[in-house]
């Protein structure tokens, strides 16, 4: 019996009706659901082993301590969704943190110390964006160069010294608003704002179009070059906000950032569902992934596994996510 197109279509329709809400959720937000389920599972399992895992203190450190990674991953997701990448963001955060601390110590108003670096981040990324969009240099090459410049610049300016004696008002990441740590609030608000922007505004939607099918995007009247520059500037904006959280979480600002910070941020974006091939992903996913990382790091400590295995676990996690994504793609085509 041959099945005609019409019969196929109606069979499909019935399947869709039967499948209902859960299927729709999985097909549109599969990655987010998976990451969320992983977080829940982790919490349940680790709490059974060691109930102190869910103490208020530890929860604060999980959710607030890594908030700056989640915030930076918002911008990174946008960059990846449009089909580009940025390996310089870790060094950028280091540079901006140093600028911020220097301004704060030099006695400039606190808000200048916070937000001037944000502008600097946007300006630096504007240059990167122009090189990618107009000079047609692949983003991996441009940001590789930017990584060297920023990293070298950071160390040669600071000479490796830490900035201390930061004014107490400057340390916003250590404050609470209505009893909730500020980084947590920032993470949630920024994630939701960015998610809404990418869902409800034509500009935000155009990122998906650009990454999914650049030719068709241009044919639909989306100015590809200008948008690419804009996405990098927005990414710089979020990197700047991430810097505020990063620079103010300790009493001192170190002259270095955690090693491979850029890769952690990229990984958060990718595990959160941003496809490196472009065209899909959400910032809710990347924030969930950042929380998952923090929870895994903490879980290793609470289960008495050496924290030195952290990166291996993350590596396996990325690998599993990517392989699952590729298998899903192969099946759907």
């Amino acid at each position: 019996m041959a099945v005609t197109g019409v019969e196929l279509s109606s069979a499909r329709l019935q399947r869709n009706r039967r499948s209902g809400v859960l299927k729709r959720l999985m097909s549109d937000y599969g990655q987010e659901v998976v990451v969320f389920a992983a977080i829940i599972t982790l919490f349940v399992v680790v709490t059974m082993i060691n109930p102190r895992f869910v103490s208020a203190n530890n929860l604060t450190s999980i959710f607030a301590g890594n908030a700056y990674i989640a915030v930076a991953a918002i911008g990174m997701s946008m960059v990846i969704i449009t089909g580009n990448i940025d390996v310089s963001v870790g060094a950028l955060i280091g540079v901006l943190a140093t600028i911020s601390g220097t301004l704060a110590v030099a006695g400039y108003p606190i808000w200048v110390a916070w937000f001037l670096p944000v502008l600097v981040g946007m300006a630096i990324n504007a240059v990167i964006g122009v090189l990618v969009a107009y000079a047609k240099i692949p983003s991996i090459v441009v940001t590789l160069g930017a990584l060297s410049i920023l990293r070298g610049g950071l160390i040669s300016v600071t000479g490796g010294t830490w900035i201390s004696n930061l004014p107490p008002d400057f340390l916003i990441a250590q404050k609470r608003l209505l009893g909730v740590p500020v980084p947590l609030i920032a993470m949630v608000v920024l994630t939701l704002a960015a998610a809404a922007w990418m869902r409800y505004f034509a500009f935000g939607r155009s990122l998906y179009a650009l990454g999914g099918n650049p030719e068709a995007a241009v044919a639909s009247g989306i100015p590809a070059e200008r948008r690419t520059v804009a996405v990098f500037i927005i990414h710089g904006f979020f990197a700047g906000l991430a810097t505020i959280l990063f620079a103010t979480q300790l009493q001192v600002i170190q002259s270095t950032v955690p090693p491979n910070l850029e890769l952690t941020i990229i990984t958060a974006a990718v595990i959160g569902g941003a496809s490196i091939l472009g065209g899909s992903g959400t910032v809710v996913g990347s924030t969930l992934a950042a929380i998952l990382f923090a929870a895994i790091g903490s879980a290793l400590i609470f289960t008495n596994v050496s924290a030195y295995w952290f990166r291996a676990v993350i590596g396996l996690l990325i690998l599993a996510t990517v392989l699952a994504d590729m298998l899903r793609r192969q099946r759907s085509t």
Partner: protein
Amino acid sequence: MADTPAFVTLSGISKAFAGVRVLKDVSFDVRPGEVHALLGENGAGKSTLIKILSGLYTPDTGTIIIDGKNVKFASPRDATAAGIATVYQELLLFPELSVAENVFLGNYPRTSMGIIDWAEVRSRTRELLDSLDTHDLDVDDKVLSLSVAQRQRVEIAKALSKNARVLIMDEPTASLVEADVRRLMDIVRQLRARGVGIIYVSHRMSEIFALADRVTVLRDGAFVATRDVGDVDEAGLVALMVGRSIESLFPKLDVPIGETVLEVKNLNHGRHVRDISFGLRKGEVLGVAGLVGSGRTELALTLFGMTPATSGEILLDGRPVSIRSPLQARDLGIAYVPEDRGLQGLVKPMTIRKNVTMATLEKVSSGMFLRAREEASRAMAAVKRLGIRCRNIDQPVAQLSGGNQQKVVIAKWLQTNPRILILDEPTRGVDVGAKSEIHLVMGELVKQGVAILMISSELPEVLGMSDRVLVMSDGRITDVLDRAEATPERVGAAMTAPRSAEAA
């Protein structure tokens, strides 16, 4: 209807690329509520004309008049704004986005606050799809999960969402199965009834006679005629298209046909190669006719080991062989000149020399080292044998004309001394001169005893060059005809056979 003033009128349109004139003084118009078919062989200039009308190209000379006003399109956006929309062969959709979003992308309904009104996007998409009698498409489905026919309906809905008054459909049925073709034709009739003017490009005579009000024929970039469909018949249209009799165009050599070299029994791969059995003999040209999507290319890919057979038998000289990779196929004496020469046949930035020896690197090496002189002499001999027009063998193939590029691909495979040569659209996008040269080469090869399997969308080429014609539809062989019995009517009937042969 003839009294209705035209909505769009093109007159005296010419266009040249790199000095080659692809359109010469062409005139064309579309009226509201008519289906105007555009007909011509590959390379006749249809796509160029369409691209001018949709704003992708600007004409060198000539005028475009819409509603009596002279217009110039600087970009596709201008054409869209003027009410002209195109449903392309390569569909321009976003696979990761939903049906509804694809329809309204770049053009979202918004609330007073400027945010996208998704409820409106979805309900208006629903309305548009319903108006196309497409009730089986969920507006929330991602496009990547849709069939080609469904994607096409999304494209049509997208065009309608922009209030298109002229819809250009470029080979819309090329990759559709029969049932979807009937649905599409219903949609086209419905659009016509609503007063939309439709430019319908197709090779399929049956569709043109079923749908079109008028038909315009192009040949070699020039305007041939515009006729009311009621005033012409199929033979007349073919004559207008080809402009010459088939015999003079295709220099078929009569070569004694030898024993069977390739035999295929009940071959299967996926949906497009189903239960295929046939034999191919020494010195024979076996033409394969069928619509795009009928499984012609898929059959070739399976024989060539790209998509190895899932079941069935391939016999070479009576011995069963297993072909799991192109390398194996090559070593068994099977060569395949692919359909898309830019993507599959050539490395365009590389030189003629490197392209010619690409499939036979071990023949130009001692051990693992390439012998530059051997490579050059082979490339030079190939240039001479096939009459490739070039500055020298170290010219990048990107700089050659389409015909010469195709000769390079053929030369590459002749290096393997194939016994069985599969040619997939060997003369697509090739100028008339190079085309007959390629046909001459085919004649020479069969004289040497090579067996040729030739896939072509161009019916006159299949009929003119083949000893036998194998017709495919929907992944199956629907007919096998000898040269004498292969008429356009019989082949055409078998091409669109709705699997009637299944019972046989």
